[in-house]
Structure formats: structure tokens, C-alpha cells
């Protein structure tokens, strides 16, 4: 039995970050799939592990201290890199490390929420709305964090205002420009080495050529497209995305070079 168990949904956004980091490090882990759309993450057996009911979470067995629980996907990635042998996913240079962290924060807190506001209105809202309304309300009531209850309600009932969606679309356009600029200055997103910033960024942007075809394509953003293909070519990325079950993440196949 493995010392590491990862509780995750699809290789996408937050769940995909520690999945890919573990794969890159060559760490064996037990995969515990939670169906986000079935609200598995708010069921008592998972809340016993992560009372906040957010995905992903990871447990790592310590011989003296037992299973230690880790949450927050970006912080989990830094832990995975530091705690296990295998290839370094943080550059040696402290300024490069700063740039890795800056980009991860920018993506986590500014760019990815805009992507997901659009993604939820396209994928998750319509998928979940097919459920029985009373069952759905009960499921929302079980969400432990009040702000997550608000976010789920907005996503499920398509309650994002026009202004909010417009602002998200504006941010997506700005963010795509910033990614293209950064990737035209250096080999990888934060520095000249592959790092956690690339793992983080890829998880939010792998489907860009399909979801934002007018903004991200071979003509307008050649560096983004090349970068996405380079990441997906990595054996660890192939293995990670092979764990996907939904059509949403199978969009990654568009990155295969012909």
C-alpha cells in the first residue's frame, strides 16, 4: 500500500496540479476519485479527511505521526516537490523561485477564477441542473464553507451577471496576452526550467485552443500553443490525463502533434 493517497477529481484545474506533480516526481500514490458533479466532496467520509470539503486533499503517512492531511493544491505541489526524491520542480535560483510563486498566485487567484467562471457556466452548471432540484438544494446545504455555497449556487443556477462574465472574459484576454509575452521571453512560464508554474498553468489552460479559439491559436499565440504541446508531450502529463473520465478533460488530445 502506498504512503500517499490523493483525493481528486478530474485532471483539471486544482485536482490536476498535485496529480501531475506526483507523476513528475515518480511518487506512487493511491488515487481516490471524487465525482465533483455528484458532490462526493461534501459526503461525511470525505469531510472526515478535509472538513472544508474542498478538492484536492492528500494524505501522507508518517511512521511516527500517522496520516498527515494536506490541502490547497499549490501548497501541496510545493510539499510534493520538497518531500520526495525525483526531478526538481522548483528552480535553484531564488529569484526564479519567486517568479514561480508569483505566477502560481496570479493564476490561482486572478486568471483561473475567470476561466472557471466561464467553464462552470458552460459545463458544470448545465450538467448539475439535470439533477432533482430538491436533491440539489440539499446537496448545496451540505457544503461546509459559506463562500463555496454562494459560488455553487451561482454556478448551478447560471446566476453570474452579465458584468461578471464580461469582466471574466476581459481577464482571460489579458491573461492570455501575459502568458504569450512571458513564454516568448523564456523557455517555460516562470524561468528557463520546467517547474511547478508550468504544471499549475497547464491545468488551467490546456483546452484554450478550443475554449478561446479567437484569442489562443497558432497565429496569435504561437508560444502558448508550443508550450502546451511541450507539456502534454511529457510522459507524466500523458499518464495524468489518461486518468480522466470525462469529455471535458479529453479535450487535451487536441494538443497531440500531428
Amino acid at each position: 500500500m502506498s504512503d500517499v493517497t490523493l483525493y481528486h477529481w478530474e485532471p483539471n484545474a486544482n485536482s490536476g496540479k498535485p496529480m501531475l506533480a506526483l507523476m513528475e516526481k515518480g511518487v506512487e500514490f493511491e488515487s481516490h476519485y471524487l465525482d465533483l458533479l455528484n458532490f462526493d466532496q461534501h459526503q461525511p467520509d470525505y469531510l472526515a479527511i478535509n472538513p472544508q470539503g474542498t478538492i484536492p486533499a492528500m494524505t501522507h503517512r508518517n511512521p511516527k505521526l500517522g496520516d498527515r492531511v494536506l490541502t490547497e493544491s499549490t501548497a501541496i505541489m510545493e510539499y510534493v516537490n520538497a518531500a520526495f526524491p525525483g526531478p526538481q520542480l522548483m528552480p535553484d535560483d531564488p529569484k526564479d523561485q519567486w517568479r514561480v510563486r508569483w505566477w502560481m498566485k496570479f493564476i490561482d487567484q486572478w486568471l483561473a477564477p475567470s476561466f472557471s467562471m466561464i467553464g462552470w457556466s458552460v459545463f458544470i452548471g448545465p450538467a448539475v441542473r439535470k439533477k432533482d432540484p430538491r436533491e440539489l438544494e440539499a446537496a448545496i446545504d451540505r457544503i461546509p464553507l459559506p463562500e463555496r455555497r454562494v459560488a455553487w449556487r451561482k454556478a448551478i443556477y447560471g446566476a453570474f451577471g452579465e458584468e461578471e462574465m464580461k469582466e471574466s472574459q476581459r481577464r482571460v484576454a489579458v491573461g492570455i496576452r501575459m502568458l504569450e509575452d512571458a513564454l516568448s521571453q523564456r523557455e517555460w512560464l516562470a524561468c528557463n526550467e520546467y517547474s511547478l508554474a508550468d504544471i499549475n498553468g497547464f491545468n488551467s489552460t490546456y483546452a484554450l485552443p478550443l475554449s478561446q479559439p479567437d484569442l489562443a491559436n497558432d497565429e496569435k499565440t504561437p508560444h502558448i500553443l508550443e508550450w502546451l504541446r511541450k507539456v502534454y508531450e511529457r510522459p507524466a502529463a500523458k499518464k495524468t490525463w489518461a486518468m480522466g473520465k470525462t469529455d471535458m478533460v479529453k479535450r487535451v488530445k487536441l494538443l497531440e502533434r500531428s
Partner: protein
Amino acid sequence: MALVLYHGAPNGPSLTALAALFETGHDAELRPIDLTMAERHSDKLPHNTETEMSIEGEGPVLVADGEPMADSVFLACYLNDTTQTSPIAPTDAFARWEMMTWCRQIIERVAPAAAYLGVKAHLGGKLSSFSDAAFEKLMAPIKSEDLKARWNDIREGVFDDEKISDSKAKIKAAVEMVEAKLGDGRDWLLGEFSIADLETYAWLAGMRDIELAAFEGATGINGWLGRMKARPSVARALSLATTPAPQEVWAPGPEINRWG
């Protein structure tokens, strides 16, 4: 390593960066700028994408060997990781995860709330006295549209009731989080003194006057606030203040989470 720190009054993110600098013992040139007058965007200091688009809002900029860097927690990590001894961050991977996760909670929940309540109490009045033309001139070099929108809201006195009550709740929750940690009688939040103490103090110190009720009956936090204030690095940072109450100096901070 040539370091220049452009910093505002010792409160919020500038306090974190200044105290981290003094904790780590680096030699740096200090250049004060007025964050409340949007001076971070002026030609007094160098810029790049990362400083212009920093989602910390108006915070300090550390220039290391010519490269400007922003975001106070990561500046503190940089200052720590360029020492031999890691004085303000644990070297054990799990303890480091605890510190980074704690700081993320502060960055994402507490900082936007504190900045919102802080500018409402202390910056709005100052900005409303500017003529349109003078204010426009201050705003012109700001590259981040959403940061500019926050400046405009403050000047026009647009403060959303929901955001105010959400911010008050976040400050209360932060005080409870700190109390819970200190419950076993420890001196510092995560056991050993770390960047988590600096970042938490930097955002909460100014809240005691504004959100009195949140601190009522909280016994642990008051002792901890006192220990923090007395720490030589923090005391030295506070001694750089040019006004008698630096905890009342607030500039627009990170935005409140758009997802609710």
C-alpha cells in the same frame, strides 16, 4: 546581491517586507514611497509585468540585482531563502506547507478584508479632496484595470454593504483562527516564529481599532500582538513611520474574491 526596497508606511504588505528584511539581516537600500498616492506606479521605481499586475494591490517592490519583484509573502520567502540559516521559514517540508497554507488563507481572505475596511476608514476622505484632473493624473500610469477600478470606488465612496459585512466576518474568523493556534500557550502561530506571524500581524494590527468587537474576549491574540510589536524587526519597521499611527495608513489591497 544588490537590494533596494521601495516601501510604504509600515503597515500591511510593506510591514511584512520591512520586518522580513530586518529578520534576515540583508543589506538593502530603503526608499520610501507613498502607496496612498499611487506612487508605486510612478517613474520613481522600475516596473515589469509582475509589479504592474500584482494582485496584492498597492504593496512594496523589492528590486534585486535590477529585477523588480512584488507580493510580500514571496518577497519574504526570497529574503529567507537567500540566507544560510532560513531564519523565518521552516526547512521541514510539512512545516513549510503549513506556513504556506496559512499565508494563503491570510492573502486570500484576510488581506482583502482588512484593506477594504482600512481604506474605507482612512483613505476615502483623503482621495475625495482631489480634483478630477489631479486624480486622473495619479491613475494614468496604473496598468491593472481592476486595481484602477478599486481606486475609483474608494474616491467615489462606493463601498458595498455585502462586502463590508463579509470583510467584518473575515476579520472575526481570522482572530478566531489565531486564538485557536495560540490556545496551547505557544508564543508564535505555528510554533517557531515565521513569515506566517509577520503576514498575519501586518494585516491584523490595524484592525484592532476598526473592528474592536472582533477582538473582544480574545485573550491570546492580544498577548501575541504585543510580542510581535516588541520584536526588534517589527519595532524597527514601525520606527520608520512618518506619521504617529502607521496602522491607519491603507492603500487599495487585493480584491475581494469575485466568486463570493
